[in-house]
């Protein structure tokens, strides 16, 4: 059957047809994409020219606001906004202007910053942001929250709290930063009810935000017992940063937490928040966890340890793991003359210790 010449011819014609069609489709697609690209580049070209003009107008107005030294008359506001108000209906200009305004506000503080906030109000930009809060797209919502935060729109702080537990992580992130900015440490109450985990990145952002505020006393004991492990980790970081000495005993309980990350963070925390008993607790749990935790304990002991702990450290000098050896040696060397004496006296069958001692000596001298 297959050998029939007619069949071969027919199948060839058919395949010619389909393949020819295929090639035709491809060439058309190529031409289409090329045309699209051309139009896009042309459009972008004209766009760029407008952008420069817009940037000029925005820059001038923003600088005027920053350096406006007089009292702002509530009737007229900051002068020279006629052109900008007219252009504000243009989405492109509005976006550019807002970006420049926010960028300036990020770098400027004091009277000048207040003026920028006033300008934002005057040009009614917060109404656009509020509209965006109702968008179905996460990035629009998050961007709007970010804008309101950066422009310091405190009046809207209560509206934003609900977003701290939004299902989208970026909306959550921006809302959490917002409530902290507007409510200070009080804003952290979202930690009571948050159901999602807080990523390390988000924790960094929050801590950074908090570091710009004057320290306040907050009760973190509830968070240290939270079922949400990331909340516990974050609370431990707070305790560490803000010297929550009264939390010491609660932090000790975290040493036995089921999550390894919590245990690790608790060790770091106890390196700064401690009393006479702390080192005993750390040492008693030394052999329960992996090397990472052990190294953390040694580092903590370097800070908080006293002579009685040196004996324990010297037992580690015989351990097989070189990292433990090195760090124990380091801790002993920097704990004073007696500790250093223990170090050099140790009889090491494995001559590696001599190299370690040399390095540690070098580190102390530097």
């Amino acid at each position, binding site marked *: 059957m*297959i050998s029939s010449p007619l069949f071969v011819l027919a199948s060839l014609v058919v395949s010619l047809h389909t393949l020819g069609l295929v090639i035709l489709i491809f060439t058309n697609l190529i031409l289409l994409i090329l045309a699209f690209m051309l139009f896009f580049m042309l459009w972008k070209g004209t766009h760029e020219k407008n952008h420069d003009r817009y940037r000029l107008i925005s820059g001038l107005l923003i600088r005027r606001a920053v350096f406006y030294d007089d009292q702002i008359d509530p009737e007229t506001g900051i002068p020279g906004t006629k052109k900008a108000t007219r252009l504000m209906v243009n989405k492109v200009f509005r976006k550019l202007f807002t970006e420049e305004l926010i960028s300036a506000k990020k770098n400027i503080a004091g009277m000048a910053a207040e003026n920028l906030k006033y300008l934002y109000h005057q040009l009614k930009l917060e109404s656009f942001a509020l509209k965006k809060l109702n968008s179905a797209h996460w990035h629009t919502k998050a961007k709007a929250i970010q804008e309101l935060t950066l422009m310091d729109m405190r009046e809207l702080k209560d509206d934003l709290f609900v977003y701290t537990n939004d299902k989208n992580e970026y909306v959550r992130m921006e809302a959490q930063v917002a409530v902290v900015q507007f409510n200070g440490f009080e804003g952290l109450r979202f930690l009571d009810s948050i159901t999602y985990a807080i990523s390390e990145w988000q924790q960094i952002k929050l801590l950074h935000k908090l570091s710009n505020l004057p320290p306040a006393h907050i009760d973190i004991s509830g968070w240290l017992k939270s079922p949400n492990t990331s909340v516990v980790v974050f609370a431990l970081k707070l305790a560490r940063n803000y010297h929550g000495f009264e939390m010491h005993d609660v932090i000790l309980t975290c040493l036995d937490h089921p999550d390894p990350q919590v245990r690790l963070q608790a060790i770091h925390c106890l390196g700064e928040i401690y009393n006479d008993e702390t080192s005993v607790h750390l040492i008693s749990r030394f052999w329960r966890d992996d090397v990472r935790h052990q190294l953390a304990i040694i580092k903590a002991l370097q800070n908080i340890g006293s002579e009685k702990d040196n004996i324990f450290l010297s037992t580690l000098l015989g351990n097989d793991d070189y990292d433990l050896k090195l760090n124990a040696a380091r801790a002993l060397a920097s704990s004073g003359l007696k500790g250093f004496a223990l170090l050099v006296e140790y009889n090491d069958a494995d001559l590696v210790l001599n190299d370690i001692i040399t390095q540690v000596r070098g580190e102390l001298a530097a």
Partner: protein
Amino acid sequence: MNLQATIFDVFSYALLSYAVLLLTIYTLIGFFSIAETRAYVRKNSFTDYRVLASSPDAPSVSILAPAFNEGATIIDNVRSLLSLNYINLEVIVINDGSTDDTLAKLISAYDLYELDFFVNHQIITQPVKVVYKSHNPVYKKLIVVDKFKGGKADSLNVGINISKNDYLVSIDVDCVLEQDALLKLCKPFLEQTEKRVIATGGVLRIVNSCDIEGGRLVKINLPEEFLPRVQTLEYIRAFLLSRMAWTRLNGLLLISGAFGAFDKDIVISCGGYNNETVGEDMELVVRMRRFMEEKKEPYKVAFIPDPLCWTEAPATYKNLGRQRNRWTRGTIETLYTHRKMFFNPKYHVLGMVSYPYWLFFEYLAPIIETVGFLAFLLFCFIGVVTWSCFFIMMSIFSVGVLYSIFAILMEVLTYNQYKQKKDVLRLLLVAMAEPIFFHPFVVASAIKGNFDILRKRKSWGEMTRRGFTHLDKNKNKYGN
């Protein structure tokens, strides 16, 4: 006649189905990469990297930069590494037994002194001679290690042994990095709450003909010579399309050794870089993935579409051939080492999708192309009607060109590094020229790679270092 026609038909249909499969995959890659890139660009707009740059909680990073005979540019390169925007950082430059003045230049430029350093040999390597640090506090992040020659993988392992931080960034010392490159590369490690990110990679771009001053990128230009230019196109396709798509599936197998970040704990648990293969970067990523699969822990390999690292591409056919030959051998070695995962459901996406894809569509593609082409010639010679064969080849050709044009479009829409219209035009022309002047050569190099590995050639194949000083002279053209 009977047998001939049968062979011919079977052959044509096999080739056709391969082509159709390839086309489907390219299309899927196109869609996935658009989605992933768009998501990334959006997420990125919420990040203020300054916060990360100055946070004490930022992940601690050790940059590992193996150097062999880099005397021409080493001082500038190290300077640019030291000025990266990052706090918790150490820069470890490993002198892999250079025979030129690399080490001497470093010692003099950075005021280095010998240090008593205890090297923890967690991974077995060639012996370390001396460890250096700088007297100058401005360079306190720098550590220079002098060791006996052992190759790139061995040098990286030395760096791992010496590093004290939690994350490793392997880098080719002559790569030019963006200032925020490290921040962007390390951020994925902090964002995941459910999975552990074990490695991240970034986009490589071609630096040929760009203006470099003091180890830093001043102006981006499209390479003037044909070979680097066509590789620019190739890199756009590979990085912007292919790798972004694979990231979406969490199936990315390769993070370029020129710039990638890794979780040090896992690297050490896996045993460090493999000294026996020339494709040590790919092999490590595959091994790390396999390790996590076997441990049954959720993990992710992340990829950043931002152009972070600019590297020099071979500009002569000779060097290009060596490079592609080495890449092929590396792929073969990696695939062979981990052949247990082939269609093995125990390894999920890695074994059922990534590995087979690499085997059939990355490794075998040049071989199938060559076989197809030779068969085409054979049929011409015999005189069998070969129009459908011819049309298949034409359609594969146009698919290839279409894919390239799509890649250029993506590049224009996203990062738009080459802003001038004439540059985009040049890229389009190169897309047409590639199948004739570039692709066959690359395929031939890959085939040769197959033969070479059968003959067990194990050298790195040195690429003669042209150095950036040659490019610096061009800066006057741009009025600098």
